[in-house]
């Protein structure tokens, strides 16, 4: 049992070590990386199955009982995040074969990529706040390396801004964890839920809650802490951007959800308003920023911010339906966003640039790629019957239930503006003729490269379609997750008394 919960980060770390030894050989490295991702996927499916049938599963590392040792725990939220990040990892590893050049592989691309996945998975399974900090750092240092790997001028420029602002978030997180320990004497998240309720110091608790919002808010890129994201996400190779876009900010959101459902549940009256305001402004500023951009990846980067607003919105509304909306939105968004970035990479390969005024004619040159873009983009904009529609529906319904009509209006306006940006990309990159007159077709690529580029895209697009056409089991799962988050009794029991090993 305890080994199964350690595998989601043990496998990527092992893979990273092997990939480091084999870094001189590009194909061997790719094979190792894909095998590792596939193994991680199998493990995460096993964990999801266990959690669905048996409730939250906990494991005490080194047999130190909670709250003294480090606890690993998978509840429904952790399990689904593990699964979705394993899928994203596998897709990006496949795409990376053709997107990452030999030089970057020699510098250790696959090693850092696997370490990033280890950091992400570790953050999802840990039940200890300080351990969460450590996994955040693993993820952070790997993302630093991936961002500047190759050392082009533009990468260094974007990288320095990313590094500078994320280090601030790290320090805030460390300080707030230290102060929380001073207040309660524990760092086990389940124990914190109990201990913090007994602390009679509302000023200190409120201050800590706000520092946590700032620390995780920088990672999650919420308003007004998101400026590192549009400065850096368009500089590395697109495979790196895709995995960043899919996973990094979502780990920040996951940490926010965990903190404000498990650790600070009683403080919500005060922090809820901050989160709500931040969510609405994040949605609007993100989507307006995207409207001003004319570069494929910059538009998508600003949309990441706008989507983060929706995720935080569900947390701020804090009803079972709203939290279920957040969980469903997260699944939908990770898949659609990663897919859009992968498609933008292939579009650049065919048309020659990311600048929308320098490209065109993609619809005529490769209808298949256009179809995939259409599915992902219009799902993001919330078109029925694609996955984004159900995700937005849950959140809009939740806001209407609380008669928060202003929130509903902002969510719908954001949806409309998202559609504006997506149709801008569609009109500029896909419909209008190529300014140089000719756009390469998919068939000009070698069979192997076509497969490496289209297989992950089609896999992610089919997940979007499945989420869209058969949303019921997934919404059911999301509602179950929301129930666990709002009533963490099973979670507490699994950590503090379960002692299964």
């Amino acid at each position, binding site marked *: 049992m305890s080994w199964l919960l350690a595998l989601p980060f043990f496998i990527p770390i092992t893979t990273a070590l092997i990939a480091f030894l084999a870094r001189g050989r590009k194909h061997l490295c790719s094979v190792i990386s894909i095998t590792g991702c596939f193994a991680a996927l199998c493990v995460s499916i096993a964990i999801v199955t266990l959690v669905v049938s048996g409730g939250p599963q906990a494991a005490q590392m080194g047999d130190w009982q909670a709250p003294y040792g480090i606890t690993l725990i998978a509840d429904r939220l952790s399990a689904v995040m593990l699964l979705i990040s394993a899928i994203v990892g596998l897709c990006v590893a496949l795409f990376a074969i053709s997107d990452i050049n030999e030089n970057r592989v020699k510098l250790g691309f696959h090693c850092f990529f696997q370490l990033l996945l280890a950091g992400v998975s570790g953050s999802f399974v840990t039940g200890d706040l300080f351990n969460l*900090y450590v996994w955040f*750092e693993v993820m*952070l240092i790997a993302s630093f390396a991936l961002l500047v790997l190759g050392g082009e001028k533009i990468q260094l420029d974007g990288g320095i801004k990313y590094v500078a602002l994320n*280090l601030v978030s790290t320090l805030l997180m460390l300080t707030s964890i230290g102060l929380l320990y001073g207040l309660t004497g524990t760092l086990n998240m389940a124990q914190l839920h109990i201990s913090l309720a007994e602390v009679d110091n509302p000023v200190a608790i409120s201050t800590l809650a706000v520092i946590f919002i700032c620390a995780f808010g920088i990672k999650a890129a919420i308003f007004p802490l998101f400026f590192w994201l549009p400065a850096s996400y368009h500089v590395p190779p697109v495979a790196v951007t895709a995995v960043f876009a899919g996973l990094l900010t979502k780990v920040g959101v996951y940490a926010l959800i965990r903190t404000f459902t498990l650790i600070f549940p009683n403080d919500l009256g005060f922090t809820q308003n901050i989160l709500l305001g931040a969510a609405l402004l994040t949605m609007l500023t993100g989507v307006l920023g995207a409207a001003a951009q004319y570069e494929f990846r910059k538009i998508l980067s600003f949309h990441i911010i706008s989507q983060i607003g929706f995720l935080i919105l569900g947390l701020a509304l804090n009803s079972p339906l709203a939290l279920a909306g957040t969980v469903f939105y997260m699944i939908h968004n990770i898949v659609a966003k990663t897919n859009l970035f992968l498609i933008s990479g292939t579009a650049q390969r065919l048309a020659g640039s990311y600048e929308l005024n320098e490209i065109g004619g993609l619809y005529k040159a490769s209808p298949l790629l256009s179809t995939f873009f259409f599915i992902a983009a219009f799902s993001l904009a919330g078109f029925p019957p694609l996955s984004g529609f159900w995700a937005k529906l849950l959140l809009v319904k939740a806001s209407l239930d609380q008669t928060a009509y202003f929130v509903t209006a902002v969510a719908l306006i954001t949806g409309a503006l998202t559609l504006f940006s997506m149709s801008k990309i569609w009109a500029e990159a896909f419909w209008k003729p190529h300014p140089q007159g000719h756009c390469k077709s998919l068939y000009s690529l070698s069979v192997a490269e076509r497969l490496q580029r289209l297989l992950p895209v089609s896999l992610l697009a089919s997940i979007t379609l499945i989420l869209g056409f058969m949303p019921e089991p997934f919404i059911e799962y999301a509602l179950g997750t929301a129930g666990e988050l709002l009533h963490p009794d099973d979670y507490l029991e699994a950590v503090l008394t379960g002692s299964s090993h």
Partner: protein
Amino acid sequence: MEGPLAVVVGILIATGVYLMLARDLLHYLFGLVLISNAANLAIFIAGRLTRASPPLIPEGQEAPQIVVANPLPQALILTAIVIGFGLLAFALALIAQVYRELGTLDVDRMRIAEPVRPKRKKSL
């Protein structure tokens, strides 16, 4: 002892923030170093400062016989120092490389990733 040390943390953070407000990247990094030390010191104080003995359990016993100091914050700080050292060393190396490639440490002049005048549609 907590009071004076809390003041030290405050001074470290104030100095760090002042340095980070400079445009020069190296000043920014020095500010981060100071604040990272302040964070470690804050954890140390949060673990309560006592004059108790080191947390050693005599042979054959299961629990310490006298009042001992809390070893956990120190373990946390040790981890944080190692991680912080790695991150700051990376940041320093990155800044050195940025200076070599871009020829400046003034963040206002680093406009390659975000050009002041991005390419627009011709009609605009």
